[in-house]
């Protein structure tokens, strides 16, 4: 599997919408374990209080990411292949677990 960063910009208007999308994403991801592994996401504070995400996934192909997004009703702005990882410090604690 290859690691990818996925941009979903300004996709949600409220934290509740984002939370619902997260639940759908996990549910769908569990159904395709050989093709998709969600690693982590950073939630972006966008204009007008909208929310976006930068998601780190491992996936068998860009098509698998799009298929997962389609079925989970998540937008995809851009998929970028991750060439390498530089870990400096652990991620900050999530605001909500």
């Amino acid at each position: 599997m290859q690691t990818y960063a996925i941009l979903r910009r300004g996709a949600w208007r409220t934290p509740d919408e984002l939370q619902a999308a997260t639940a759908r994403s996990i549910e769908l991801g569990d159904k395709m374990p050989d093709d998709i592994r969600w690693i982590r996401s950073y939630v972006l504070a966008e204009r007008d209080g909208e929310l976006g995400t930068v998601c780190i996934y491992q996936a068998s192909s860009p098509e698998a990411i799009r298929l997962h997004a389609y079925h989970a009703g998540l937008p995809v702005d851009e998929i970028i292949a991750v060439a390498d990882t530089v870990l400096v410090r652990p991620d900050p604690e999530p605001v909500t677990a």
Partner: protein
Amino acid sequence: MAAVAAEAAGLLERDSVLGELSDALAEAVARRGRFVLVAGEAGVGKSAAVRAFCAKARGSADVLWGGCDALFTPRPLGPFLDIAEEAGGELATAVNEGAPAVVAALLGLARPGSATIVVVEDVHWADEATLDVLRLLARKLEQAPLLVLATYRDDELDRVHPLRVLLGELATLPQAERLTVPSLSPEAVAELAGSAEVDAGELHRLTGGNPFFVTEVLASGNGTIPPTVTDAVLARAARLSGESRAVLDAVAIVPPEADLWLLEAIAGESMEGLDACLGSGMLRPERAGVAFRHELARLALEASVAPQRKLELHRAALGALGRPPGGAVDVARLAHHAEAAGDADAVLRYAPAAAERAEAVGAHREAAAHYARVLRFGERLSPAERAEFLERRSRACYITDDIDEAIDAVEDALELRRELGQRLEEGESLTWLSTILWCPGRTADSVRAARQAVALLETLPPGRELANAYVHQDWALAERALELAEELSDSELILRIRTIIATRDFANGSEKLEECLELAQAAGITDLAGDASTHLVSRALELHRYDLAARYVDSGLTYFSDRGLELYRFYLLGYRALIELDQGRWDNAAEAAAAVLRIRRASIMPRITGLVVLGLVRARRGDPGHRELLDEAWSLAEPTDELFRMGKTVAARAEVAWLAGDREAVAGITEYPLRLAQEREDRSVLGELGVWRRRAGNGAEVSGAAGPYAAELAGDWREAARQWTQVGCPYEAALALAQADEEKPLWQALTELQRLEARPAAAIVARKLRELGVRVPRGARASTRANAAALTPRELDVLRLLADGAGNATIAERLFLSSRTVEHHVSSILSKLGVRSRGAAVAEAGRLGLLQDP
């Protein structure tokens, strides 16, 4: 070992077993104890399912685990010795006192309100005392919250097995139930195989869906029988008597199943061992005989039979099959045993007949194998006979797309024909060689062979060989060939030549080629049906007649799959991917292309198509991983120097360069192929490449293009877009509109590209709009894709209020905005919808379906 492998298989299709175990546990805790027998064949994953269940239950229940052992003399109370070692206490002393004490100790372990699970594995090997414990325990379960799980192989119980008595008793108890862990379905096997390059259907057939066998074969990955499987199979056989093992040997060498009369003839007196083989579960009864439960077990045993013994068995089988009680002989089986028995005369008698029979029913792969068998014993044949069989093998290999084998065979045949001075046959084989050399992209060699064929055959009296050579050398010679074929009244040859003429002149109408296809199918000329069908689809695609192409892809896939004509099936799969791409169904296109790319074959055309389609889907979406796909396509296409193979690849590379804004690269990529297209008057490639050069601002002095390409090359983007829309190509239509320098068509293009999620092309159009002074939001918001006009959520809110007849002030009030901001939103809405007034905006929004509730 079986358990470990099955765990690697995950818990596919085990939901219902796990669900029933959970129900039983809940029942045991809430009301009274339960006894569950978990049955299934060896390696099916009984232990894996029970382990997974216990692992999940461990938080709320104590788990005690013991197993029976496969010794000729098992340890008395063996599983409870295991449990006592772990649990200690009363049980440790009870195991020295006998079954009643063990039962009392086990019941004593149960505590009200919490659950205890006792697992006893492999009770088909249980000693008498263990069976006693289970029997007593089952009766006393009402008193304690215990869940007893006993696993056993239900394929290994003969009629007098001691476990049968216990099973019979338990069947009458309400607290006992039996669960069967089933074999995997073909779908689950395919899932396990995942992306591994194996044929999942074949794997299911070999293993009978047994997870242990499946995972072992996948892990070994080299097509041989994994040693772990051989060990497991031989260990099972070793527990049988000598007579039974002799029966197994005999059944193993007569696949797929042994009729009883045949088995009697081969195994003789050992037949008495048959019952034990059935009782052990290694064999199962079939309609008129017996067969191995798993093909893989048969292969493992066959490989273990000593060579001399094997020879004897095959001789006996050959003799018996030559005089079957029913009368009709099965030449394919005879050929198989003849070779295995080393009987050259019998091989040469049966194998050619078997090959012909196979060809007659469309089993070309088998036919090729039978011809190979004949040739292995070919030293007894005359050179002319050998050449003949080589040629036949070549044709069978070609149809199944084993091109390298096909080329080797015909080259050997050619050498023999030359030595024999058989010029006519030599010419015919040269023509054939020219056909197959084309498949792996050896175009120059193919052309040379065709020329040699014509040159040679023209020195002989004209006949069908020459006519055939003419059309292979050059489609322009088809009329001359047809004349010759008509003189000879050779109806098959006439149909072949007519097919080529109809393909060549397809632009004047598809009916003639459709008719040739129908005639070829009706006459059962399968390779011609294949050629006609792939030509038809490929020409329909060039002319953008997608309905026609799709119709023949569908019917062709069914026809060729049924007949084992793999070569043509791969072509059509590639074309299906292309149709889906052009019609804007990119998910389907990517899926079809990936399916083609999973097949590794010698013919390069289907692979090129698959690489181009998947590469374009990725490039158009701005996804990574497109470059390596298109590079591979180019590395396959370039050496062929053929537009049929290079055209799509070059166009795709030009498109990628254009999307990246690299105009010089577009010029470099298209220059030579465009010149070639001009020279060879390939209107389709000409138009497509010319358009890419024009879009990139390179000179495109192209003449002779057709359809939408011609319109765009003439600067009429509106007409080009109209034609693309008419044939159902939304991306192409949008790119044509993107050539405009006016706001409305550009917005239309942008909207369509955003709907297709064609990010790079959308960015190009957005930039162009901005250059016209139009305000385009940076990076359309994701949620705006839900609507066809790229309106933002806030703009949609404003639009809905507009539709309600609200004015700026009201809108500002309702949405907590300033009037100036509302004004700004309204003008943005008008520009995106390409209208001038609020009323027109509402009408246009209604038409686009934007006013429905979100």
